[in-house]
């Protein structure tokens, strides 16, 4: 009997807590879900924002694809994504979705070659390595761009992400642009059919394999590579310069003429100062904020939050190793936010 009673109590307690939770979730809590890449930045900005305003933000870092799915199902106020919606996803959503750039990030080529402290790579060679065509570190192509570096006679161990991820999307998007053979054989996606190499799960999986395996080459988010003190290569950009990936060169990559909707791939940037493997990370919201039983106040609350993100929130980028928005990116982002409507009327 005692057991049954305590069970009853537990059920009541759980039910009660569910009710109170859902009640508090409605009023001043905004819900978001998506990109894991942007999560540290978002949680810092949102914590700061909720101290100043009476708004809580609950952001779940479940991955870009999951965030888009939740936005499609209208269970969240905004999604976070490292890639713009693809054709299939926009078709499923059916209504216009705004892509607001929040920050940019770079993908760096990490390596572990004994005795090599600096490495320069062209995009074409990088793709050939990942195609399995360049297999030795001392091959002619790599030696040609690294004069004066003593490259060992060692097989290249290619490491890629095994899980679907925005990082892989940015990386394969770049390879697709710079190497026609990659474009026709493999293409770009968050998970592709890798012609060669080993897969590691997550940033930590790739980093773990690269650090352990002599002769390995991999790719990681810039922030992750900095925090874990990994060696990463300078990559040649469109202007022919070898660029060291830093926050400045990442921001520079988006300081170009941008399309009005900001749904643009930044890889292989035209800016001669920009690092070529970069991308925006976007917040996704419905263009018309009146759907379901959404109130105008809630829509305003959401847009205020995102407005804060692209202005005051940007100062949190650099300490967390994100590249802040460039001038031209900020201009576009402001315009996009202003284009959001509630029942046809502008909100901001």
């Amino acid at each position, binding site marked *: 009997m005692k057991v049954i009673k305590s069970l009853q109590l537990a059920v009541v307690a759980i039910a009660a807590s569910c009710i109170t939770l859902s009640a508090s979730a409605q009023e001043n809590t905004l819900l978001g879900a998506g990109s894991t890449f942007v999560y540290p930045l978002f949680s810092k900005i949102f914590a700061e924002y909720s101290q100043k305003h009476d708004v809580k933000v609950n952001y779940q870092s479940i991955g870009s694809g999951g965030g888009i799915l939740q936005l499609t199902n209208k269970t969240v106020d905004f999604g976070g994504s490292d890639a713009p919606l693809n054709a299939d996803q926009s078709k499923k959503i059916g209504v216009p979705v705004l892509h607001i750039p929040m920050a940019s990030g770079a993908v760096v080529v990490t390596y572990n070659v004994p005795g090599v402290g600096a490495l320069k790579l062209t995009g074409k060679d990088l793709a050939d390595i990942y195609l399995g065509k360049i297999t030795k570190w001392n091959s002619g192509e790599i030696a040609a761009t690294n004069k004066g570096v003593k490259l060992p006679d060692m097989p290249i161990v290619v490491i890629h992400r095994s899980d679907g991820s925005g990082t892989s999307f940015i990386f394969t998007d770049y390879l697709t642009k710079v190497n026609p053979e990659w474009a026709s054989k493999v293409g770009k996606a968050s998970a592709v059919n890798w012609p060669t*190499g*080993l897969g590691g799960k997550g940033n930590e999986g790739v980093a773990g394999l690269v650090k*352990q395996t002599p002769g390995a080459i991999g790719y990681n988010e810039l922030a992750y590579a900095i925090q874990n003190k990994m060696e990463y290569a300078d990559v040649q950009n469109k202007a022919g310069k070898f660029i060291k990936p830093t926050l400045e060169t990442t921001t520079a990559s988006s300081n170009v003429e941008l399309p009005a909707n900001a749904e643009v791939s930044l890889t292989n940037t035209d800016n001669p100062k920009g690092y070529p493997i970069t991308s925006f990370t976007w917040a996704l919201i419905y263009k018309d904020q009146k759907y379901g039983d959404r109130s105008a106040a809630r829509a305003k609350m959401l847009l205020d939050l995102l407005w804060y993100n692209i202005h005051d929130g940007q100062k949190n980028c650099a300490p967390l190793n994100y590249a802040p928005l460039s001038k031209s990116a900020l201009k576009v982002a402001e315009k996009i936010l202003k284009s959001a409507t509630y029942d046809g009327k502008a909100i901001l």
Partner: protein
Amino acid sequence: MKNKRLDLSYSQMKWETIFKQILKIMSVLILVLVAGILITLIVESMPSIKSLGIKFLWGKVWDPVQNIYGAYPFLVGTLLTSFIALIISIPFSYAISIYLGEYNPKGWLSNLLKNTIELIAAVPSIIYGFWGLFVLVPLIRTFEMKIGVAPYGIGVFTSSLVLAVMIIPYAASLGISLIRMVPSPLKEGAYALGATHFEVIRSVIMPYTRSGLFAGVLLSLGRALGETMAVTMLIGNTSAVANTIKDAIFGPGNTMASVIANEFTEADHTVYLSALIELGLVLFFVTVIINLIGKRIITKFTNY
């Protein structure tokens, strides 16, 4: 006059029926649950079945960009890792069962060993993954350099080794209990006839517990087939099909469970997602088929 004893027995009878019904409902609920999982898997994998057909099973290419999906590399990877792990684990689990069941069934050492083995099953699989990645992989790499295969360190063999450690407790703890349950008159009879310890094990205990021990092995195989996290971290996750047997065992591979775990969250178009779910369906059937075969073998060997 009212008979109080009869009243009581009515309520007892009532409780008896209620209790029986509860048991029945609980069992049927499990059946409904399994059927529900199967139906969900089939319904959700319809788009992929429609667009790829039966080719899905032996297609060798897994290309989310071109929307071509073939389960063959992962099917092979799953079976290969599980069976290699099983082969490695059987000598250990049998030896442990016999030692703790027959040679040393009581005392602190026996208890300590038994608890330690059960603890192996309680360690979360991600811990095995990390241990494998940071401790086992460098060792395997040195070993692979010595035998002259590509020294990746990670791959099918490494994940099988870790899997073997993970599944030992399942077969072993069942085996220990079974061997301890062998009726002592049987054993004493054999000893009385002058049999040695080893002969008793071979001719009395083994025949008596054979089907039970096999059931334990089957249980551990089921665990190996579905294990995800540790394998994902160690197998190398490549969908390329190996050309030689050496490459298939020591080279990188992939399993169905780890592909699902890796790609499910970011599967961004309908057929892709559905192909992953169909992979789950295939895994479901593989498990069912292997279990059925196991059951057949058990009934065949149980002749008394």
